[in-house]
């Protein structure tokens, strides 16, 4: 189980210390975070309104989408890391 704060911390570590914290470790934190959500939030959407590239995903699908879509992954990590 991971809290949202742990998810943010993992994103920051990935941005600031890419050599000591792997993408796989980050994705495991995402999975733990998603698993810890109540059902209504697992089924809710997270979206971003970028022109030609746009994305809305169910939160329960975040781990899969982050693995499959590098652009979304990049934007999501920087959104969390506050950069």
């Amino acid at each position: 189980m991971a809290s949202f704060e742990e998810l943010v911390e993992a994103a920051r570590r990935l941005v600031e210390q890419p050599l000591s914290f792997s993408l796989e470790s980050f994705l495991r934190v995402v999975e733990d975070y998603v698993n810890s959500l109540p059902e209504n939030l697992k089924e809710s959407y997270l979206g971003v309104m970028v022109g030609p590239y746009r994305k809305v995903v169910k939160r329960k699908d975040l781990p899969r989408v982050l693995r499959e879509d590098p652009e979304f992954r990049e934007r999501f990590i920087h959104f969390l890391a506050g950069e």
Partner: protein
Amino acid sequence: MVVVKLVVLAPYYEIATYIWSPYLRGWVAKELRARCAEPVLLWADDANRRKLWEAVKDTETYGVLGVGHGWEKGIVGQKDEVLLRVGDEITPEWKKVVFAPVSCLVGKELVPWLVEQGVPAGIGEVTEYWFTAEKINPSGESPEEDQLLKYFLYAEYTFWFRLAEGVTAGEAYDAMIAEYQRQAELAKQVDPMTYRCLVVDWQNRKFFGDRNYKLPLAPGRILTRTEVSAAGKRLPKDRRDVVTVAGRVVAEDGSVPRGWVTVRVVSKLGERSDSVALGEDGTFSVVFEFQWERNEDVEYSVTAAYGGWVGERCYVPSRAETTLTVKSTLVPTLLRIEKAVAVRDGPLVHFGVSGVLRDADGVPLAGKVVEVVAGDGEIRRTWAETREDGTFVAEVSKSYPPLQTKAAVYARFKGDDTYQGSEDMRIVAFPPNWDFVKILVAAATAAALLLALLLAALL
């Protein structure tokens, strides 16, 4: 009669727009009409470049809002058709139009560029605009349909609603940012991800252009001013506060507005709201009650929002805010010693004390602890609990000098978080220590006798 038109971009062709645009067609359009502005809805296939530019050419159009996917240099509508981009020829009609749709990244280049071309004011996100939502394809009649997206909707459209209410673009923008912050705090307990989105969104939602720009006042559109005051009363015995909110709505032309006022009161004890109709003189009044557990100061934030009225004339909504602190208040009490007796037992004096504890209204207080103290020198104390009828009985013992024959006894209620403390005192008489007196007399007698014998022998 209503001649301020606002173009509402509402493409409807993929998930983000399925989520957001129904609220533009329903709730936002309704709220704009209530503010005497006419939404020109470009829904689904109508959210295209030709229709947008035609709508802007209308001399009565003064704004573009809504939603659209964006990038640094442009914004797209239905099926990703580019609606507007850096480098377009900005015709003179655009130079009266506030441009502020929700869109990613347009604050980086597109909106500043539009302002350079003469657009009076605009708002644009300098990063991505993130959001959370529960539902695809809602009816869109109320933000309450979606318990996540509602935070974004209430915050974002504060700008347009306030602008239509007659404030400047800068004031409307400030109100929007404040509302984003307020909504973020509300969302924090519900979902930290939503909180994060709201914070990132408002921190990167930038204003460009003339802060003093205002929408023109259409004929028949009457600005209003809401006045509000609040009074609070603490009822410690009932463990509740009664907050009375009263006020009036004043029209700038001196006429009496019609319509409803929504009053909301927020404190750490919770939130209450109610909608009340304006009286014939434009006044309103509403009473709320808040239960509390701890008798401490409570600050209440009060908002009164007049929703406007569209009839033969169009009264523009207005709002007012105030705060109120209800101070902790304790109920006075009266403690009375009704009987106090003392019995001497050698050096010890035993006191029997009875009395009653009542509140200021004379109501007996049960279950309260009363301290009974025998005074003078080293004190002795005991405690008794009041019965159903408020009475108490206590005994306390203490040594006194053999010749002391009176002392003070005290009964004291220290108070609690509802009741003030109170106390009473009695001087109680008791006999001297007769055993000691007898010894003293015997000793004196013996000494006198000895002295007499000594004197006789000497003589």
